[in-house]
């Protein structure tokens, strides 16, 4: 700071309009975002309101119908995937059993196809049936570009574009969260089912205490 005269600082301020993007940055008197604004920001940044088609052939909008106001889990699969997907799907079937009728009532599970061009409604319905998925666990297909925007929106991509394109290496995590409370986390889809189920319950009961006895 010693090196800067007040004049220089002023001349710099006068120049600000020249640098349009810089001028916009300076916001003296700006105020804190409200939780409502935070929620909107997350919605716009992470949850595109694109159409999807569920395993019953019904069209829904991702944010409005699936996310808004709900406790949800989101993961990706494709029917012909023979490595990670069956492991995750079998595991989620166990998780659903553990959570019982909370799924479909207090929380919703979503599995979205990464290869919608192969996985039409009949395919995802058959896939869903093969895991004996109960009510509240829905499977979706849709337009590839829409699904891609969901995948990127929830951060299930690799920093290396080459790996990111390889669907056999797709992200096996399960995103879980409570939309109105802006509570979001993720866990590996092949983690132990009881632990995944416990993690999901925090979204419905964030006040829970816990100790682990040795």
């Amino acid at each position, binding site marked *: *700071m*010693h*090196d*800067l005269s007040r004049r220089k600082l002023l001349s*710099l301020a006068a*120049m600000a309009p*020249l*640098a*349009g*993007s*810089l001028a*916009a*940055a*300076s*916001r003296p008197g*700006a105020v*804190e*975002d*409200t*939780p409502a604004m*935070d*929620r909107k920001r997350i919605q716009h*940044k*992470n949850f*595109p309101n694109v159409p999807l088609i569920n395993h019953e052939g019904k069209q829904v909008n991702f944010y409005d119908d699936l996310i808004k106001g709900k406790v949800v889990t989101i993961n990706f699969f494709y029917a012909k995937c023979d490595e990670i997907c069956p492991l995750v799907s079998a595991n989620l079937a166990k998780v659903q059993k553990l959570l019982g009728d909370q799924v479909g009532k207090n929380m919703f599970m979503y599995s979205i196809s990464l290869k919608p061009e192969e996985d039409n409604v009949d395919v995802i319905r058959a896939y869903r049936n093969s895991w004996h998925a109960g009510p509240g666990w829905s499977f979706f297909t849709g337009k590839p570009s829409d699904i891609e*925007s969901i995948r*990127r*929106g929830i*951060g299930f*991509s690799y*920093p*290396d*574009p080459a790996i*990111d394109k390889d669907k056999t*290496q797709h*992200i*096996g*995590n399960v995103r879980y969260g409570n939309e109105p*409370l*802006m*509570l*979001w*986390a*993720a*866990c*590996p*889809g*092949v*983690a*132990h089912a*009881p*632990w995944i189920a416990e*993690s999901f319950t*925090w979204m419905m009961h*964030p006040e*829970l*205490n*816990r100790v*682990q006895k*040795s």
Partner: protein
Amino acid sequence: MYFNVFGEKVSRKRYKEMQNAAKNRRELIAAGLSGRRELMKLGLLTAGGMLIAKDGLSSRAYGQQAIPPSGSNQLCLPGNQAASPRTRAFIEPLPRMPITAATPLSSLNPAPTICPNTTGGEVRAACHQAPELNPTMFPFPPPRVYQMHQRAFKGSHSPDLPMQTLWGFDDGTHGPISPGPTYQANYGIPQMTRNVNALPPLPEVGGFGMPSVSTHLHNAHNPSESDGNPCDFYGIGNFADQYYPNVLAGFSSTNPPNGDINESLSTLWYHDHRVDFTSQNTYKGLLGFYCLFNEFDTGNEETGFRLPSFPEFDIPLAFADKVYDEHGNLQFDLFTLDGIIGDKFLVNGQIQPFLQVEPRRYRFRLLDTGPSRFYSYFLTDLNNLNAVNQFWVIANDGNLLPNPVEVSTVRIGPAERVDVIVDFSQFAGKTIYLENRLLQINGQGPVIPQGFTAGIPGDTAASQVECNTGLDASGAPIAILSDILPAGKGNLLLQFQVSGTRVADNSVDPRSNPSFYQLPSTNTPPRIIRTFKFDRLNGQWSVNGQFMDCNDFRFTVSQNSSEQWILTNLTGDWTHPIHIHLEEHQILTRNGLPPTLAIERSRKDVVEVHPNERVQLFFRFRDWVGKYPIHCHNVVHEDHAMMALWHIVANGGDNISVP
């Protein structure tokens, strides 16, 4: 066809934005500002000059086109990431955290109990081991008692950003602050903290953060129930009494009755460790320092090792990098699996502060609070960029080295600490900067990704050259040849304004090569050698192919035994700072060879495991029993299951060599 700085295709619109940004910058330079150096001083080229141009809201700045944010104002930003608003640099003094104020025992309601007072709202896994083991050495209640409330408060990291809700620690005297107040603790004086969750309920929290906590004291030789384990957490209105014995390792095992003086710890820190939510909660402010003194490291430069006096000349510095939205509100990317890189650099909760110092020796305790950034610290004189300015590292991860090590730079990753001595007498009357010159553009760690080259071959667009490499004073592009940026081209973190007046300095001169603690022997044969492979399987962070589960103890260590642990990084381009609770380790080998860095011949509690590296560690697990974790301290990885729980039992450790 158009490309961004990573050689990725971008839209025509995006390319035009990049060019406009570059044009803006050229106009600024043409309008009379002599060059980058000056822009940087003003904080105009942002908080860190050219590095900023490549940073963004998260690792997703690289390789991903996120949904374009509104109001992005970065000069040349790849990947359509949001960037923080402008903040002025070096106009605010460095915040100095107050010493944690003790609490009268009578003010604790309900009164503390040795076993958890569950009906009174306490959440603790077990009865206190220490007073049960030795009530004379560890009385209950202990002589020093603290009560810390985790609370929300209105604060700001810069006068150019609005007041906003942050989280901090309130000792009842200084109000909630972040970093929290600094504990001044002493070996031989046990203490207890009642950590009370007084955070606001959801959804008032807003944006990110989970009002559910477990406060870990990082690197303390603490019994498990007071460790602040990620699997023991509690909601609003509950508390945990955490007993800190302040006792040397070995006191009830190898070196009775007082423990091994060569296991003395100096610089510890406390932070939230709530499983799956640590990154959000620490980013929001739940952390602070814990400085532990003894008869050698006394805090008084006229006694013991004569290290600069605390707290006047011995200053803890907590480094953090963060991102703000266009309104200046702190932002956290809830939707990344990789790591978060900020474009604003904070020291002790202030963006780019200054510190007025006297021309004498200071001890700084440098802590990288993460979430995901690594630092290579240099002392930079912007008026003499060719000068190599030396300083001394005296402690690694808060553990004093056998002797000071003279360096021109030192590198740390998330959760690592180094204590350094800087002799400002050589800079009397000058302005000197603490600069991070390590290039890191995403959560992977300081590795230049493939495709990141100085300029795009065959493309001479000035915007790309500028964005990619920055310009020197004459406007010529600077090529990036390593992950260390040229002096003055990194992130200026802290400005030292050195007064010209000579002053007294009774602290030890590191040039005289004083001796501190000797390294404890690693000759004890290990009871078992265990191997841990850190990997990424379908985007899932794993330890030996498995994932964090609080209900799963992966292996059992025999109390008071020695073990060797081999940590292997199979994740290609990623660097993982691995932390193990309870006792420090010593690095025996990296890829089969003893550590070459002098400061790695030390005791540590975090080890950077670099790509394709195999690190062999020596451990002792003494004195206490119970559960502890091993985890990656890139807290985004940690929160996505790169952690394993293990425990220590009195008899009968197992023989699982690949847990």
